[in-house]
Protein backbone atom coordinates (compact mmCIF):
# COMPACT_ATOMS: atom_id res chain seq x y z
CA UNK A 1 0.00 0.00 0.00
CA UNK A 2 1.36 3.43 -1.02
CA UNK A 3 1.91 6.03 1.60
CA UNK A 4 0.00 9.29 1.29
CA UNK A 5 2.59 12.00 0.71
CA UNK A 6 2.63 14.80 3.28
CA UNK A 7 0.45 17.70 2.20
CA UNK A 8 1.98 21.18 2.33
CA UNK A 9 1.90 22.99 5.64
CA UNK A 10 0.19 26.38 5.72
CA UNK A 11 3.48 28.28 5.52
CA UNK A 12 4.48 26.05 2.59
CA UNK A 13 1.19 26.80 0.85
CA UNK A 14 1.75 30.52 1.38
CA UNK A 15 5.33 30.24 0.14
CA UNK A 16 4.23 28.33 -2.97
CA UNK A 17 1.74 31.04 -3.87
CA UNK A 18 4.22 33.82 -3.09
CA UNK A 19 6.58 32.42 -5.74
CA UNK A 20 4.02 33.21 -8.44
CA UNK A 21 3.50 36.88 -7.61
CA UNK A 22 5.43 39.02 -10.07
CA UNK A 23 7.50 42.04 -9.09
CA UNK A 24 5.52 45.24 -8.98
CA UNK A 25 2.10 43.73 -8.38
CA UNK A 26 -0.36 45.38 -6.03
CA UNK A 27 -1.80 42.70 -3.79
CA UNK A 28 -4.47 42.37 -1.13
CA UNK A 29 -4.22 39.39 1.19
CA UNK A 30 -7.31 38.08 2.95
CA UNK A 31 -7.49 37.08 6.58
CA UNK A 32 -6.03 33.69 7.57
CA UNK A 33 -3.53 31.72 5.50
CA UNK A 34 -3.40 34.41 2.78
CA UNK A 35 -1.88 36.83 5.32
CA UNK A 36 1.14 34.51 5.53
CA UNK A 37 1.97 35.13 1.88
CA UNK A 38 3.62 38.46 2.76
CA UNK A 39 6.15 36.64 4.96
CA UNK A 40 7.29 34.48 2.06
CA UNK A 41 7.98 37.03 -0.64
CA UNK A 42 11.49 36.90 -2.05
CA UNK A 43 13.29 39.93 -0.57
CA UNK A 44 14.52 41.07 -3.98
CA UNK A 45 11.01 41.16 -5.45
CA UNK A 46 9.13 44.36 -4.66
CA UNK A 47 5.41 43.70 -4.24
CA UNK A 48 3.07 46.30 -2.72
CA UNK A 49 0.45 45.17 -0.23
CA UNK A 50 -2.90 46.88 0.24
CA UNK A 51 -5.16 46.68 3.24
CA UNK A 52 -8.87 47.54 3.12
CA UNK A 53 -8.74 49.89 6.09
CA UNK A 54 -6.70 52.36 4.07
CA UNK A 55 -3.07 51.33 3.61
CA UNK A 56 -0.90 50.81 0.59
CA UNK A 57 2.68 49.66 1.09
CA UNK A 58 1.96 47.62 4.19
CA UNK A 59 5.07 46.08 5.74
CA UNK A 60 5.61 43.14 8.10
CA UNK A 61 4.48 42.92 11.72
CA UNK A 62 6.51 45.19 14.01
CA UNK A 63 8.79 43.97 16.78
CA UNK A 64 6.91 43.73 20.07
CA UNK A 65 8.61 46.87 21.38
CA UNK A 66 7.99 48.88 18.22
CA UNK A 67 4.24 48.60 17.87
CA UNK A 68 2.42 51.68 16.57
CA UNK A 69 -1.05 51.37 18.14
CA UNK A 70 -2.49 53.52 15.33
CA UNK A 71 -1.38 51.20 12.59
CA UNK A 72 -3.40 48.04 12.01
CA UNK A 73 -4.44 46.03 8.98
CA UNK A 74 -7.87 44.77 7.96
CA UNK A 75 -7.37 41.75 10.22
CA UNK A 76 -6.84 44.20 13.11
CA UNK A 77 -3.24 43.06 13.53
CA UNK A 78 -0.48 45.58 14.13
CA UNK A 79 1.59 46.12 11.02
CA UNK A 80 4.14 48.57 9.64
CA UNK A 81 4.22 50.88 6.66
CA UNK A 82 7.10 50.73 4.20
CA UNK A 83 8.79 53.84 2.82
CA UNK A 84 6.55 54.87 -0.07
CA UNK A 85 3.43 53.67 1.71
CA UNK A 86 0.35 55.85 2.00
CA UNK A 87 -2.88 56.20 3.96
CA UNK A 88 -6.34 56.93 2.57
CA UNK A 89 -9.93 56.62 3.72
CA UNK A 90 -12.27 53.67 3.34
CA UNK A 91 -14.03 54.92 0.20
CA UNK A 92 -10.73 55.64 -1.53
CA UNK A 93 -9.43 52.27 -0.34
CA UNK A 94 -12.36 50.47 -1.90
CA UNK A 95 -12.12 52.64 -5.00
CA UNK A 96 -8.73 50.95 -5.42
CA UNK A 97 -10.36 47.54 -4.98
CA UNK A 98 -13.56 48.08 -6.93
CA UNK A 99 -11.96 50.18 -9.65
CA UNK A 100 -9.88 47.21 -10.80
CA UNK A 101 -6.52 48.59 -9.66
CA UNK A 102 -5.34 45.61 -7.61
CA UNK A 103 -3.38 43.07 -9.63
CA UNK A 104 -4.24 40.33 -7.22
CA UNK A 105 -6.36 39.40 -4.28
CA UNK A 106 -5.67 36.20 -2.36
CA UNK A 107 -8.60 34.89 -0.36
CA UNK A 108 -9.41 31.86 1.68
CA UNK A 109 -12.62 30.05 0.78
CA UNK A 110 -15.10 27.39 1.83
CA UNK A 111 -15.60 26.32 -1.76
CA UNK A 112 -14.50 27.11 -5.28
CA UNK A 113 -16.57 25.87 -8.21
CA UNK A 114 -15.20 24.82 -11.57
CA UNK A 115 -16.78 27.89 -13.19
CA UNK A 116 -14.84 30.20 -10.86
CA UNK A 117 -17.62 30.87 -8.39
CA UNK A 118 -16.36 31.33 -4.86
CA UNK A 119 -18.06 30.95 -1.48
CA UNK A 120 -16.19 32.27 1.52
CA UNK A 121 -18.41 34.42 3.71
CA UNK A 122 -21.40 32.50 5.03
CA UNK A 123 -21.48 28.92 6.24
CA UNK A 124 -25.10 28.44 5.22
CA UNK A 125 -28.02 30.36 3.79
CA UNK A 126 -29.54 30.05 7.27
CA UNK A 127 -26.63 31.92 8.82
CA UNK A 128 -28.52 35.14 9.26
CA UNK A 129 -25.63 37.24 10.54
CA UNK A 130 -22.56 36.32 8.53
CA UNK A 131 -19.66 38.76 8.36
CA UNK A 132 -18.95 39.69 4.75
CA UNK A 133 -16.35 42.44 5.26
CA UNK A 134 -14.63 43.29 2.00
CA UNK A 135 -14.80 39.82 0.46
CA UNK A 136 -17.44 40.62 -2.15
CA UNK A 137 -15.71 43.85 -3.17
CA UNK A 138 -12.34 42.16 -3.46
CA UNK A 139 -13.75 39.19 -5.39
CA UNK A 140 -15.58 41.40 -7.85
CA UNK A 141 -12.84 44.02 -8.15
CA UNK A 142 -9.37 42.47 -8.25
CA UNK A 143 -7.85 41.75 -11.66
CA UNK A 144 -6.85 38.31 -10.48
CA UNK A 145 -8.48 36.36 -7.71
CA UNK A 146 -6.48 33.46 -6.34
CA UNK A 147 -7.82 31.23 -3.60
CA UNK A 148 -5.49 29.76 -1.00
CA UNK A 149 -7.11 26.98 1.02
CA UNK A 150 -6.86 23.37 2.18
CA UNK A 151 -7.83 20.98 -0.58
CA UNK A 152 -10.56 19.40 1.55
CA UNK A 153 -12.47 20.15 4.72
CA UNK A 154 -11.31 18.71 8.02
CA UNK A 155 -13.54 15.72 7.52
CA UNK A 156 -12.30 15.13 3.99
CA UNK A 157 -15.03 16.76 1.92
CA UNK A 158 -13.81 18.39 -1.30
CA UNK A 159 -13.69 22.19 -1.39
CA UNK A 160 -13.12 22.27 -5.15
CA UNK A 161 -16.58 21.48 -6.44
CA UNK A 162 -18.89 21.37 -9.43
CA UNK A 163 -21.26 23.90 -7.94
CA UNK A 164 -20.90 25.76 -4.66
CA UNK A 165 -23.32 24.69 -1.94
CA UNK A 166 -22.47 27.60 0.37
CA UNK A 167 -23.80 31.11 -0.32
CA UNK A 168 -21.73 32.74 -3.06
CA UNK A 169 -19.31 35.60 -2.58
CA UNK A 170 -18.91 36.31 -6.30
CA UNK A 171 -19.58 34.59 -9.60
CA UNK A 172 -16.95 33.28 -12.02
CA UNK A 173 -14.03 35.24 -10.60
CA UNK A 174 -11.44 32.74 -9.34
CA UNK A 175 -8.61 32.18 -11.80
CA UNK A 176 -6.35 29.97 -9.68
CA UNK A 177 -6.48 27.82 -6.55
CA UNK A 178 -3.51 26.94 -4.34
CA UNK A 179 -4.13 24.10 -1.92
CA UNK A 180 -2.03 21.91 0.31
CA UNK A 181 -2.08 19.30 -2.47
CA UNK A 182 -2.00 21.14 -5.78
CA UNK A 183 -2.10 24.29 -7.87
CA UNK A 184 -5.11 24.38 -10.12
CA UNK A 185 -6.19 26.85 -12.77
CA UNK A 186 -9.84 27.69 -13.26
CA UNK A 187 -10.47 27.88 -16.99
CA UNK A 188 -13.38 27.79 -19.41
CA UNK A 189 -12.77 23.98 -19.48
CA UNK A 190 -13.05 23.83 -15.69
CA UNK A 191 -10.24 22.91 -13.28
CA UNK A 192 -6.88 22.37 -14.97
CA UNK A 193 -3.92 20.96 -13.04
CA UNK A 194 -0.82 23.13 -12.88
CA UNK A 195 1.14 21.04 -10.41
CA UNK A 196 0.65 18.65 -7.53
CA UNK A 197 2.81 17.71 -4.58
CA UNK A 198 5.48 15.07 -5.11
CA UNK A 199 4.26 11.53 -4.81
CA UNK A 200 0.56 12.30 -5.05
CA UNK A 201 -1.11 10.43 -7.88
CA UNK A 202 -3.57 12.13 -10.18
CA UNK A 203 -6.17 9.55 -9.13
CA UNK A 204 -5.61 10.34 -5.47
CA UNK A 205 -5.95 14.06 -6.16
CA UNK A 206 -9.07 13.50 -8.23
CA UNK A 207 -10.58 11.50 -5.39
CA UNK A 208 -10.20 14.51 -3.14
CA UNK A 209 -11.69 16.93 -5.66
CA UNK A 210 -15.40 17.44 -6.24
CA UNK A 211 -15.18 18.18 -9.96
CA UNK A 212 -13.09 16.87 -12.84
CA UNK A 213 -9.44 17.94 -12.97
CA UNK A 214 -8.18 18.30 -16.50
CA UNK A 215 -4.59 18.12 -17.63
CA UNK A 216 -3.16 21.12 -19.46
CA UNK A 217 -3.94 21.04 -23.18
Amino acid at each position, binding site marked *: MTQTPAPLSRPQMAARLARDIPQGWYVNLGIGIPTMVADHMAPDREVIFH*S*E*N*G*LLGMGPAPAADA*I*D*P*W*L*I*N*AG*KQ*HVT*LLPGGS*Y*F*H*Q*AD*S*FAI*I*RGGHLDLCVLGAFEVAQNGDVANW*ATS*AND*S*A*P*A*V*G*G*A*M*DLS*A*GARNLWVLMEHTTKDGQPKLVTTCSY*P*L*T*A*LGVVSRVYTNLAVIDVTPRGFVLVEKIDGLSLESLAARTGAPIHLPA
Partner: protein
Amino acid sequence: MIDKRVASVAEALVGVADGATVLVGGFGAVGQPNALIEGLIEQGATDLTIVANNAGTGRVGLARLMELGRVRKIICSFPRSAGSVVFEELFRAGRLELEIVPQGTLAERLRAAGAGVPAFFTPTGVGTLLAAGKEERTIQGRRCILEQALHGDVALVEAWRADRWGNLVYRSSGRNFNPVMATAATLTVAQTQHLAELGELDPDAIVTPGIFVNRVVHIPYGDPAS
Protein backbone atom coordinates in the same frame (compact mmCIF):
# COMPACT_ATOMS: atom_id res chain seq x y z
CA MET B 1 -16.08 84.28 14.52
CA ILE B 2 -16.70 80.73 13.45
CA ASP B 3 -15.83 78.42 16.33
CA LYS B 4 -17.02 74.85 16.14
CA ARG B 5 -15.26 73.80 19.32
CA VAL B 6 -17.57 72.87 22.17
CA ALA B 7 -16.60 72.43 25.80
CA SER B 8 -18.03 68.99 26.53
CA VAL B 9 -19.23 65.76 25.01
CA ALA B 10 -22.72 66.54 26.29
CA GLU B 11 -22.71 69.80 24.36
CA ALA B 12 -21.35 68.01 21.30
CA LEU B 13 -24.34 65.67 21.29
CA VAL B 14 -27.14 68.15 21.89
CA GLY B 15 -30.04 67.46 19.56
CA VAL B 16 -29.37 63.81 18.75
CA ALA B 17 -32.95 62.58 18.53
CA ASP B 18 -34.71 59.29 19.15
CA GLY B 19 -34.87 57.33 15.92
CA ALA B 20 -31.72 58.93 14.53
CA THR B 21 -29.38 57.18 12.14
CA VAL B 22 -25.92 57.49 13.66
CA LEU B 23 -22.75 56.87 11.63
CA VAL B 24 -19.89 55.71 13.84
CA GLY B 25 -16.32 55.90 12.53
CA GLY B 26 -13.43 53.65 13.37
CA PHE B 27 -12.04 50.32 12.22
CA GLY B 28 -11.18 47.92 14.98
CA ALA B 29 -10.14 50.01 17.97
CA VAL B 30 -8.38 52.59 15.82
CA GLY B 31 -10.09 55.88 15.05
CA GLN B 32 -13.14 54.99 17.13
CA PRO B 33 -14.89 57.99 18.66
CA ASN B 34 -15.08 56.31 22.06
CA ALA B 35 -15.89 59.39 24.10
CA LEU B 36 -18.75 60.29 21.78
CA ILE B 37 -20.15 56.76 21.96
CA GLU B 38 -19.99 56.93 25.77
CA GLY B 39 -21.63 60.32 25.51
CA LEU B 40 -24.41 58.89 23.39
CA ILE B 41 -25.04 56.28 26.10
CA GLU B 42 -25.37 59.13 28.61
CA GLN B 43 -27.35 61.36 26.28
CA GLY B 44 -30.27 58.98 26.14
CA ALA B 45 -31.41 58.91 22.51
CA THR B 46 -33.03 55.59 21.68
CA ASP B 47 -34.50 53.64 18.75
CA LEU B 48 -31.24 54.34 16.94
CA THR B 49 -29.95 52.95 13.68
CA ILE B 50 -26.19 52.50 13.94
CA VAL B 51 -23.98 52.42 10.85
CA ALA B 52 -20.51 51.11 11.58
CA ASN B 53 -18.11 48.54 10.22
CA ASN B 54 -18.57 46.26 13.22
CA ALA B 55 -21.36 45.56 15.68
CA GLY B 56 -19.38 46.20 18.84
CA THR B 57 -17.26 43.97 21.06
CA GLY B 58 -17.29 43.23 24.76
CA ARG B 59 -19.87 45.06 26.82
CA VAL B 60 -18.65 48.62 26.39
CA GLY B 61 -19.14 51.31 23.79
CA LEU B 62 -21.43 50.31 20.94
CA ALA B 63 -22.07 46.94 22.60
CA ARG B 64 -23.20 48.70 25.76
CA LEU B 65 -25.50 50.99 23.77
CA MET B 66 -27.04 47.90 22.19
CA GLU B 67 -27.27 46.07 25.51
CA LEU B 68 -29.23 49.01 26.92
CA GLY B 69 -31.83 48.44 24.21
CA ARG B 70 -31.19 51.74 22.51
CA VAL B 71 -30.38 50.34 19.09
CA ARG B 72 -33.17 49.24 16.78
CA LYS B 73 -31.03 48.38 13.78
CA ILE B 74 -27.42 48.00 12.83
CA ILE B 75 -26.02 48.45 9.31
CA CYS B 76 -22.52 46.99 9.03
CA SER B 77 -20.22 44.74 7.04
CA PHE B 78 -18.79 42.58 9.80
CA PRO B 79 -21.26 42.01 12.65
CA ARG B 80 -19.89 38.75 14.01
CA SER B 81 -16.34 39.01 15.21
CA ALA B 82 -14.30 38.02 18.22
CA GLY B 83 -16.15 39.40 21.24
CA SER B 84 -19.38 40.47 19.56
CA VAL B 85 -21.32 38.82 22.38
CA VAL B 86 -23.99 41.48 22.91
CA PHE B 87 -24.77 41.59 19.22
CA GLU B 88 -25.12 37.78 19.14
CA GLU B 89 -27.46 37.72 22.12
CA LEU B 90 -29.72 40.50 20.90
CA PHE B 91 -29.76 39.30 17.34
CA ARG B 92 -30.65 35.73 18.31
CA ALA B 93 -33.38 37.10 20.57
CA GLY B 94 -34.82 39.01 17.63
CA ARG B 95 -34.27 42.31 19.37
CA LEU B 96 -31.99 43.84 16.76
CA GLU B 97 -32.44 44.36 13.04
CA LEU B 98 -29.40 43.76 10.89
CA GLU B 99 -28.49 44.97 7.41
CA ILE B 100 -25.26 43.46 6.14
CA VAL B 101 -23.49 45.49 3.46
CA PRO B 102 -20.24 44.62 1.71
CA GLN B 103 -17.59 46.87 3.20
CA GLY B 104 -16.83 48.66 -0.06
CA THR B 105 -20.50 49.13 -0.84
CA LEU B 106 -20.94 50.53 2.66
CA ALA B 107 -18.11 53.01 2.13
CA GLU B 108 -19.40 53.92 -1.33
CA ARG B 109 -23.00 54.38 -0.14
CA LEU B 110 -21.74 56.75 2.54
CA ARG B 111 -19.55 58.58 0.06
CA ALA B 112 -22.53 58.81 -2.30
CA ALA B 113 -24.63 60.40 0.44
CA GLY B 114 -21.95 62.99 1.02
CA ALA B 115 -21.42 63.66 -2.67
CA GLY B 116 -25.04 64.04 -3.77
CA VAL B 117 -25.25 60.73 -5.62
CA PRO B 118 -28.62 59.25 -4.66
CA ALA B 119 -27.92 55.83 -6.19
CA PHE B 120 -25.22 54.01 -8.15
CA PHE B 121 -24.59 50.72 -9.88
CA THR B 122 -21.91 48.28 -8.73
CA PRO B 123 -20.83 44.75 -9.65
CA THR B 124 -20.14 43.97 -5.98
CA GLY B 125 -22.61 41.47 -4.58
CA VAL B 126 -24.18 40.44 -7.91
CA GLY B 127 -25.68 36.97 -7.73
CA THR B 128 -25.30 36.73 -3.95
CA LEU B 129 -27.77 36.76 -1.05
CA LEU B 130 -26.97 40.44 -0.53
CA ALA B 131 -28.36 41.28 -3.97
CA ALA B 132 -31.82 40.06 -2.97
CA GLY B 133 -34.47 42.58 -3.93
CA LYS B 134 -32.04 44.89 -5.67
CA GLU B 135 -32.46 46.12 -9.21
CA GLU B 136 -30.02 44.44 -11.57
CA ARG B 137 -28.77 45.72 -14.90
CA THR B 138 -25.95 44.76 -17.23
CA ILE B 139 -23.71 47.74 -18.02
CA GLN B 140 -20.78 47.48 -20.44
CA GLY B 141 -21.26 43.72 -20.38
CA ARG B 142 -21.03 43.46 -16.62
CA ARG B 143 -23.89 42.53 -14.28
CA CYS B 144 -24.48 45.26 -11.68
CA ILE B 145 -26.91 45.99 -8.88
CA LEU B 146 -28.28 49.36 -7.85
CA GLU B 147 -27.26 50.62 -4.40
CA GLN B 148 -28.68 53.64 -2.56
CA ALA B 149 -26.90 56.47 -0.79
CA LEU B 150 -26.75 56.00 2.98
CA HIS B 151 -27.32 59.24 4.91
CA GLY B 152 -26.84 59.76 8.61
CA ASP B 153 -28.63 62.19 10.86
CA VAL B 154 -25.48 62.24 12.94
CA ALA B 155 -21.88 61.19 12.33
CA LEU B 156 -19.49 60.54 15.19
CA VAL B 157 -15.86 60.61 14.12
CA GLU B 158 -12.42 60.69 15.65
CA ALA B 159 -9.64 62.95 14.41
CA TRP B 160 -6.00 63.39 15.32
CA ARG B 161 -5.98 67.19 14.98
CA ALA B 162 -8.76 69.70 14.46
CA ASP B 163 -9.11 73.50 14.35
CA ARG B 164 -11.96 75.89 15.06
CA TRP B 165 -13.23 75.74 11.48
CA GLY B 166 -13.62 71.98 11.91
CA ASN B 167 -10.78 71.01 9.58
CA LEU B 168 -9.63 67.49 10.44
CA VAL B 169 -6.60 65.32 9.91
CA TYR B 170 -6.27 61.71 11.01
CA ARG B 171 -3.45 59.50 12.18
CA SER B 172 -2.40 56.65 9.88
CA SER B 173 -5.00 53.86 9.94
CA GLY B 174 -7.22 55.96 12.23
CA ARG B 175 -8.52 57.56 9.05
CA ASN B 176 -10.64 54.61 7.81
CA PHE B 177 -14.40 55.40 7.74
CA ASN B 178 -14.10 58.73 9.56
CA PRO B 179 -13.68 61.16 6.65
CA VAL B 180 -16.33 59.37 4.60
CA MET B 181 -18.91 59.43 7.39
CA ALA B 182 -18.07 63.07 8.15
CA THR B 183 -19.44 63.98 4.69
CA ALA B 184 -22.58 61.88 4.97
CA ALA B 185 -24.49 63.25 7.96
CA THR B 186 -26.63 66.26 8.75
CA LEU B 187 -24.76 66.76 12.04
CA THR B 188 -21.11 65.75 12.14
CA VAL B 189 -19.39 65.70 15.52
CA ALA B 190 -15.65 65.12 15.83
CA GLN B 191 -13.68 64.22 18.90
CA THR B 192 -10.06 65.16 18.42
CA GLN B 193 -6.87 64.13 20.17
CA HIS B 194 -5.30 67.53 19.54
CA LEU B 195 -6.50 71.03 18.83
CA ALA B 196 -4.65 73.16 16.30
CA GLU B 197 -4.70 76.90 15.77
CA LEU B 198 -6.39 78.04 12.59
CA GLY B 199 -3.76 77.92 9.86
CA GLU B 200 -1.60 75.35 11.61
CA LEU B 201 -2.91 72.46 9.54
CA ASP B 202 -1.24 72.25 6.13
CA PRO B 203 -3.93 73.19 3.56
CA ASP B 204 -2.49 70.59 1.16
CA ALA B 205 -2.87 67.87 3.80
CA ILE B 206 -6.26 68.58 5.36
CA VAL B 207 -8.33 65.44 4.85
CA THR B 208 -11.74 66.67 6.01
CA PRO B 209 -12.38 70.33 5.16
CA GLY B 210 -14.33 72.02 7.94
CA ILE B 211 -17.45 72.39 5.81
CA PHE B 212 -18.31 68.79 6.71
CA VAL B 213 -17.94 69.26 10.46
CA ASN B 214 -20.40 70.92 12.85
CA ARG B 215 -18.84 70.41 16.29
CA VAL B 216 -15.39 69.60 17.61
CA VAL B 217 -14.67 68.38 21.13
CA HIS B 218 -11.16 67.91 22.48
CA ILE B 219 -10.63 64.40 23.91
CA PRO B 220 -6.91 63.66 24.31
CA TYR B 221 -7.43 60.05 25.28
CA GLY B 222 -4.16 58.71 23.98
CA ASP B 223 -3.56 55.49 22.10
CA PRO B 224 -6.28 53.08 21.03
CA ALA B 225 -6.58 49.80 22.89
CA SER B 226 -4.55 46.94 21.43
